[in-house]
């Protein structure tokens, strides 16, 4: 079974799955997507991105035209096929977990004596 992804990695991949983003965009979207429960600091975000790039789950997006924000040239990031597979794997794992929890909670009716 694949290792569970850390919340930071999971949310970064999930944000990138919906399109290329620059660092600050990822930070804001992770915050919004997790209802404020995952607050990625800038250093943590770039550390995470560096690791994801190293294991080829994320890559720098090729530039299509100027990509400047407030006059600054920004680097955009894109999820790779490997990253999508890892994200899908973790989503499947979570779904399985939820199914197990539901089954345990609902339980076989009348099993208690």
């Amino acid at each position, binding site marked *: 079974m694949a290792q569970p992804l850390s919340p930071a990695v999971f949310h970064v991949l999930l944000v990138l799955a919906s399109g290329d983003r620059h660092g*600050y965009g990822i930070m804001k979207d992770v915050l919004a997507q997790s209802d404020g429960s995952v607050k990625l600091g800038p250093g943590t975000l*770039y550390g995470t991105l560096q690791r994801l790039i190293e294991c080829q789950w994320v890559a720098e997006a090729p530039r299509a035209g100027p990509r400047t924000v407030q006059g600054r040239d920004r680097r955009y990031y894109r999820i790779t096929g490997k990253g999508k597979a890892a994200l899908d794997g973790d989503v499947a794992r979570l779904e399985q977990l939820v199914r197990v929890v539901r089954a345990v909670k609902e339980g076989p009716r009348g099993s208690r004596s």
Partner: protein
Amino acid sequence: MAPEADRLARTKASGLACYRLALRLYPQAFYRQYAEELEADFEEASDESFRAEGAAGLARAWARAWADLPWSLTREWLRTAWPPAVVLATLAASFALYASVFRAYGPLQQYRQRVAAGIPPPQDSPELLWLMLLMVLVPIGSIIIVSGVITLALRRKGRSTRRV
């Protein structure tokens, strides 16, 4: 420029300058790769938070960025090959400090007892002076030397792992 706007611009500039300085604490390779983006994010977050929530928002954005620094710095340094060197350097500096304080402790106690007993201290006590100097110079010197060596080693390491 209105005085209020001028003050705000200066506050933001000094906040960014401090943050830029703090970013130098990251390992060289990480710094080279991401410092520019970290700065840009800091600036963008500052502007956006100030526009949305005023000074309180700006303070919150800065607090978030600063609060993240110790954790991410630790993580990034732990990812380098140098934690054992840092541990050894800390041990060496602590040992030097301990040894010099321990060496000076006895004579200092004698000196204190003489003074407390009303016996005038010797006019010239070069040993004491030397011990006091050692107590100060040995730890400071060893810390400077060890950190210098580590910094040089890390710079070299940073250059060798530079991304293309």
